């Protein structure tokens, strides 16, 4: 095998490229990135003002590893017949294995076209450079991106209104008890939060809600989720369903083409999931790299997410399920973790919130418990006097 091409130079594609070398691949690696910037980490974009650019790797590391970076270029077409990609600028590169790591793009609903979105570095610069004390900022969507941006803007004295269509913030992944802590904190900081209110139209200076209320504003940002970037894969005839369909080795319906990260939909715990997660992007990139070299087993890494807002950090591991009860473990007056067990008593998720990294250890332990399909003795998770590390160790 001589040629591997990776489409997408985000967290997933970059990780895959380096993992190929770590696994001993000595052929040519081409990494194609649409943005002109050296690959950077996305999570800081909503958390800091001015924009903090954090490179995934210094330029010299790509050179040292012999990874050919094509930046500011995009793949126009995948030719599965002769196993090559056509790259903007008229270049064609053959591949023996191809990895699609095209990520996701910011979603925009009808009526919201006038709103800005925050997905990449240029978006972040455009939005954050405009912030100043007294500016009225309306954020549509009370998810991680919207709320992190709200916290960042509020610290600068911006007048922030967050508009969320669901009945509570971060409803997709975060338990209500934790969302309530976040809501209270934003309100205490002076952010105006409107929940249960869909948006009908966005104009330059006004956001109109379903109930005909109008939020007057100077700047509108929509953070209403992301859609998998599947266009290239679809044109190439690969199977798509909420992302590019892959198997447990991240191979698509074409055995020479793999997909990983936010753009793919993979089997996990008996269902198909698509994650938008910094760490999953890395893990899957690494896994797909090994799979392309014929080395990977089934993927079983446990999902993990975090969000920083003010001095609060929330962390989630596993996939919280609607309808399963929570066991609450208080770590201090203002830090707690909620565990979910399935009917068989196996831990399936843990979500925590606290100042700084107060919940990090417990979440990590929960992640290991999920990975090991651990069934904790009844009553122990909720008892802060019980040392979770000790019971995990005792079980192994």
């Amino acid at each position, binding site marked *: 095998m001589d040629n591997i091409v990776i489409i997408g130079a985000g967290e997933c594609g970059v*990780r895959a490229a*380096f993992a190929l070398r770590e696994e001993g691949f000595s052929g040519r690696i081409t990494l194609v990135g649409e943005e002109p910037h050296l690959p950077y*980490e996305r999570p800081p974009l909503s958390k800091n003002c001015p924009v903090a650019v*954090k490179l*995934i*790797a210094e330029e010299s*590391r790509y050179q040292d590893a012999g990874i050919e970076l094509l930046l500011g270029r995009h793949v126009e077409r995948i030719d599965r017949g002769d196993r090559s990609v056509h790259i903007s600028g008229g270049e064609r590169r053959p591949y023996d294995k191809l990895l699609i790591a095209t990520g996701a793009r910011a979603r925009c609903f009808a009526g919201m076209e006038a709103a800005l979105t925050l997905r990449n570095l240029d978006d972040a610069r455009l939005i954050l450079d405009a912030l100043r004390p007294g500016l009225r900022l309306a954020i549509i969507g009370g998810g991680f991106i919207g709320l992190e941006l709200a916290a960042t803007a509020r610290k600068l004295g911006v007048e922030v209104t967050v508009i969320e269509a669901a009945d509570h913030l971060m409803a997709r992944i975060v338990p209500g008890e934790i969302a309530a802590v976040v809501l209270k904190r934003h309100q205490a900081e002076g952010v105006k939060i409107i929940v249960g209110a869909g948006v009908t139209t966005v104009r330059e200076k006004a956001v109109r809600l379903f109930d005909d209320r109008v939020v007057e504003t100077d700047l509108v940002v929509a953070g209403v989720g992301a859609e998998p970037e599947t266009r290239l894969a679809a044109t190439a005839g690969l199977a798509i369903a909420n992302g590019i369909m892959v198997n447990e080795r991240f191979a698509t319906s074409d055995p020479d083409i793999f997909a990983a990260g936010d753009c793919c939909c993979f089997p996990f715990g008996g269902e198909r999931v698509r994650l938008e997660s*910094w*760490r999953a992007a*890395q893990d899957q990139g*690494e896994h797909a790299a090994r799979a392309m070299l014929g080395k990977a087993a089934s993927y079983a890494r446990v999902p*993990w997410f*975090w969000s920083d807002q003010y001095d609060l950090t929330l962390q989630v591991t596993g996939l919280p399920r609607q309808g399963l009860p929570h066991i609450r473990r208080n770590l201090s007056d203002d830090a707690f973790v909620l565990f979910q067990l399935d009917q068989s008593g196996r831990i399936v998720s843990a979500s925590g919130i606290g100042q*700084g*990294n*107060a919940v*990090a*250890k417990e979440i*990590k*332990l929960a992640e*290991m418990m999920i990975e090991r399909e651990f069934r904790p003795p009844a009553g122990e998770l909720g008892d802060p006097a019980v040392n979770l*590390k000790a019971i995990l160790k005792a079980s192994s």
Partner: protein
Amino acid sequence: MPQWVDACAVGDIDEEDLIRFDHEGRTFAIYRSPDDEFFATDGVCTHEHAFLSDGLVMDYIIECPKHNGRFDYRTGEAKGAPVCVNLKTYPVKVEDGRVFIDVA
């Protein structure tokens, strides 16, 4: 010239755990391994600013509480993405039930 600083008592650190130690504006992490040896590293992750003392120790690995960067605390070796820069380590000695680190 070594510059030994009295950091803590042996009993201040649980087995297979760590504590944070601040000295003259610097932050260190001091570890007690499962086989009861002591080690010291810089106290802040090399990836982003986060105190390692909030992280979990399993065997000889400290995992950063922020973004899961992992290091072998005996050598400071970064164990892979997202961390690529090793942690600096410091000599440690135990005398009369006290843990000293050489901060020079």
